[in-house]
């Protein structure tokens, strides 16, 4: 190595020798991109709308339009430039905004007023060319303001009358407990959203997430919003790459857990580095600060882009088989361990996503009878999000949906982690049918739900207190 030292002194910009990239390394990276579906899943531009607030609805709408269309004018173009520079696909360019319940509180008197803001957001998304805009959100983990409640009640109409707006409601946190009034309301809102879009397989519900411990900097939809703790604008990047992890694990089929974990960790490191690079470059080109890299394994319905396939590669016949929770726990943990070294700022959800409709392997597991709603709930204790993109019978009652939400929120609250629920009670469909959303959202077989009632439990109203381990002061 010393041999090269004089060269570097003579011309320090020429890095020849030990730093020179080898053909094997180039081949490895390009194989990940071209054969194993490595991509940057999303560049999400967070935009604060707090300075748009007005007590006049028309003025507010105009302010929002101006701010988003100015800030995000170059987002899609920048994404394309970076794709060309590094030869890596950047699948989605998206926007998250300040929770609209805060922005619209002064101007909106009715749910219909809020829905008008949703339409403005949708128009902005179409103007700048992003495929989703998140932030039609209310944060009500302790209690609801009047504006919060109006926004929540407007969600079905807002989602039914827009194409690209995503909505989320945070109904609980480890610090505050669970707002059971909001949980009860969300059961009804989800049913209503399903009904409003009944001719499109209840599509609106695919764009609506209920959270516990929602992160402020999540770049992934449908739960992305620009938290109030954030600056004026920020670039957050979500990387993906379940196919890459799966391919790496094919080489250690007979290895023990140590080798298995080491392989996942190294692969996660490499994937995250790409995210870090893209985030830095996007931040530089758009002159917007870099926020976080979210190192999630986010599946798509494409073949070879599946978290379920990783679980199978680890040694399960199907996800849902005994051992699934343990396999997912180690996967999630190793992804984080590899990722935290690769990026200075890791955030968002970071881990493995287990949506049903967006993952071909999960769909197969449900169809084979291996995977049930109850097992998925257990898996959410150790995955990075929650019950995601699960289609249930259209006749499921609002109280039952609230009950499922409450269970999932309790898991998040007690384990101090983010959990989420994105259920689709598909109107007119029953177990045995399926719903088709198309594109990244995929299709889903209707899963059976426990038919016993929780009506009286949900009907109590009020708030579940914060758990004892939240008192850390």
């Amino acid at each position, binding site marked *: 190595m010393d041999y090269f030292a004089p060269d570097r002194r003579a011309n320090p910009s020429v890095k020849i020798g030990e730093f020179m990239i080898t*053909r094997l390394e180039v081949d490895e990276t390009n194989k990940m991109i071209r054969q194993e579906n490595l991509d940057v899943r999303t560049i999400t531009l967070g935009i604060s709308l707090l300075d748009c607030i007005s007590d006049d609805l028309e003025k507010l709408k105009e302010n929002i339009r101006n701010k988003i269309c100015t800030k995000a004018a170059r987002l899609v173009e920048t994404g394309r430039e970076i794709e060309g520079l590094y030869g890596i696909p950047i699948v989605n360019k998206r926007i998250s905004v300040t929770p609209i319940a805060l922005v619209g509180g002064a101007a909106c008197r009715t749910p219909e007023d809020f829905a008008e803001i949703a339409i403005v957001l949708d128009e902005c998304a179409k103007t700048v060319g992003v495929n989703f805009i998140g932030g039609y959100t209310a944060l009500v983990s302790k209690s609801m303001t009047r504006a919060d409640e109006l926004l929540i009640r407007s969600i079905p109409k807002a989602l039914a009358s827009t194409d690209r707006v995503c909505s989320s409601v945070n109904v609980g946190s480890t610090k505050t407990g669970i707002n059971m009034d909001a949980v009860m309301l969300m059961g009804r809102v989800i049913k209503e959203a399903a009904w409003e879009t009944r001719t499109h397989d209840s599509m609106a519900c695919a764009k609506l997430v209920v959270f516990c411990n929602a992160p402020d900097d999540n770049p992934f939809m449908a739960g992305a919003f620009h938290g109030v703790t954030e600056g004026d604008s920020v670039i957050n990047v979500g990387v993906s790459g379940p196919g890459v992890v799966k391919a790496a694990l094919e080489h250690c089929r007979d290895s023990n857990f140590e080798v298995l974990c080491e392989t996942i960790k190294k692969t996660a490191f490499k994937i995250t580095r790409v995210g870090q690079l893209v985030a830095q470059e996007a931040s530089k080109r758009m002159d917007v600060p870099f926020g976080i890299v979210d190192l999630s394994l986010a599946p798509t319905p494409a073949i070879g882009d599946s978290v379920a396939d990783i679980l199978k590669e680890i040694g399960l016949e199907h996800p849902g088989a005994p051992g699934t929770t343990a396999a997912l726990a180690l996967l999630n943990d190793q992804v984080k361990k590899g990722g935290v070294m690769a990026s200075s700022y890791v955030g968002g959800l970071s881990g493995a996503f287990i949506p049903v409709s967006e993952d071909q392997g999960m769909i197969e597991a449900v169809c084979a009878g291996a995977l049930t709603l109850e097992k998925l709930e257990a898996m959410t204790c150790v995955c990075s999000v929650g019950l995601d993109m699960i289609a249930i019978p259209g006749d499921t009652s609002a109280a039952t949906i609230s009950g499922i939400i409450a269970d999932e929120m309790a898991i998040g609250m007690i384990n101090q982690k983010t959990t989420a629920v994105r259920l689709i009670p598909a109107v007119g469909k029953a177990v045995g049918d399926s719903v088709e959303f198309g594109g990244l959202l995929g299709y889903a077989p209707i899963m059976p739900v426990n038919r016993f009632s929780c009506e009286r439990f949900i009907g109590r109203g009020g708030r579940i207190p914060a758990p004892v381990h939240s008192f850390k002061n």
Partner: protein
Amino acid sequence: MQKTIITVVGKDTVGIIAKVCTYLADNQINILDISQTIVDGFFNMMMITDTEECTKDLAKLRHELHQVGQEIGVNIHIQHEEIFEMMHRI
């Protein structure tokens, strides 16, 4: 110095290197390193190049190299070196 990586993959034939190198020379692109092999009749080459002196941007180079590749039946990609550096060097 602006280092880029050019990869060429395809069925082996006479004059692939000549064709690619001619294009690079015409565009003032300096070659720093070449590694090339044939596996099962498939040509596989990686070049580390310096595009500092080149007046065309990467998008244009990518497009033109793709066309050069099509003429001789190989796939040519050009990428900024940083992605490989980031992934494989701590």
